[in-house]
């Protein structure tokens, strides 16, 4: 059975990393836009959380509050359930034989979360934001699945811990570069972050999140950052050899690699404009899917002989 401490350690680690990601993003954003003294923005997320907690709730007209609530709560829950299969060092909370498929299933739950958040308040911008995430989902999901299948093919197992152990010779990120690149793009898309933040972009006044107020806004933001953290943390066992590494013990290496990938994702957020979903969909289906299929073919040939 899994030791009890991992069951407690996972939410705590996810919470700390989420806060770290949020305040890191605030400082990075301020620095990238040349604001005076960017470091003082480290507590922006705490201020935003305080604002959200003291905010009065409003009702939009003829809104479907149940679905909106379900959508907002699904986001952090999906992030936590997706993190359940990721090894915290050597031990995962739930060491299932189909960890990779479970991770993918939990991450698809964000489709439902963002669409419901968009549909709930009966507001035009929110609905446009919700539908943009569906287009984004249809665009990134297939290449993302092929990347995960390539990883499972290379490791010969769907169990995340075994996938991490199978990379002791050479990391998958090194000899499956296309799959790694496709995974990083879909990591951004999972958390609708940076260039793939079209569902909550400024051109529709923060799209799906336009009518969120009070605790809903806080839970939605926490869920979104948690998803980004889980997407970065999942890149470690899939492509960066899990806890393996010289000198330091496994959990420390996992943390270091997660922070590196998380930093890269946050930095990409401020370096690129937002991609419009109709153009990204075309690019994903015409370029990303053939590329990830080719990558799978190469890996299959290597694994066979």
């Amino acid at each position: 059975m899994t030791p009890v401490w991992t069951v407690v350690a996972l939410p705590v680690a996810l919470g700390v990393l989420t806060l770290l990601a949020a305040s890191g993003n605030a400082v990075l954003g301020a620095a990238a836009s040349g604001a005076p003294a960017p470091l003082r923005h480290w507590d922006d997320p705490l201020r935003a959380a305080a604002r959200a907690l003291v905010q009065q709730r409003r009702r939009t007209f003829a809104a479907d509050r149940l679905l909106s609530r379900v959508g907002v709560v699904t986001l952090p829950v999906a992030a936590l359930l997706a993190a359940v299969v990721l090894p915290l060092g050597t031990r995962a909370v739930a060491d299932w034989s189909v960890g990779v498929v479970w991770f993918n299933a939990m991450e698809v739950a964000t489709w439902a979360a963002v669409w419901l958040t968009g549909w709930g308040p009966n507001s035009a911008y929110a609905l446009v934001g919700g539908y943009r995430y569906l287009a984004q989902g249809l665009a990134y999901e297939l290449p993302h699945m092929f990347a995960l299948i390539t990883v499972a093919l290379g490791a010969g197992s769907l169990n995340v811990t075994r996938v991490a152990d199978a990379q002791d010779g050479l990391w998958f990120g090194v000899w499956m570069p296309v799959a790694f690149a496709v995974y990083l793009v879909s990591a951004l898309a999972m958390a609708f972050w940076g260039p793939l933040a079209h569902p909550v972009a400024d051109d529709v006044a923060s799209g799906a999140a336009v009518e969120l107020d009070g605790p809903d806004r806080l839970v939605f933001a926490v869920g979104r950052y948690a998803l980004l953290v889980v997407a970065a943390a999942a890149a470690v066992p899939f492509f960066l050899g899990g806890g393996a590494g010289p000198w330091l013990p496994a959990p420390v290496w996992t943390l270091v690699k997660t922070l590196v990938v998380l930093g890269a994702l946050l930095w990409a957020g401020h370096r690129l404009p937002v991609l419009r979903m109709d153009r990204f969909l075309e690019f994903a289906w015409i370029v990303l899917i053939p590329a990830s299929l080719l990558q799978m073919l190469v890996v299959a040939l290597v694994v066979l002989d």
Partner: protein
Amino acid sequence: MQVAAFWALAVTAVASGVAVFRVDSMARATFALLASFLCVGGLLLLLDLHYLGALVVLMMIMEMLVMAVFMVMYMMNPAGLMPMTMIHNGRWALGISVAVFAALAAGIVLTPWPPRRGAPPDDPTYALGEAIMGPKMLVMMGIGLAILATMIGSVVLSTDRGRYDREDPR
């Protein structure tokens, strides 16, 4: 513990199945159906079919979201703000489905099911993979062809633009 989980999931599955046809809002109907599927996915996990359980959860969430697109596009009253009954010959349908259920239930309870033959393998997913790639290869190819035919058929049926005139000139 497993029995409690089974009954909880089973009752939720049937309750949300009934709710699909009781609620006014189409969005709520779609997500009641999704809840029913998620319960079935949980039940498959209870039966040690881990791969198929996760697969059902994965595919059903995506399908229900695509269904939500069409449901909002075509339905006159997607948010159920104007309750209207979209039922025709309700009584007759209810009678038939209750009769079907009674017949099935009688069949289930009365037939002496054979005892279990063989033990479940330690990794059912591996067994499924072996079967699909081995003796059941024909099934896999059949599914592949059916999916291809559906993709082409649905695109041809649903688009009214010809193959050549591209709508937004690049």
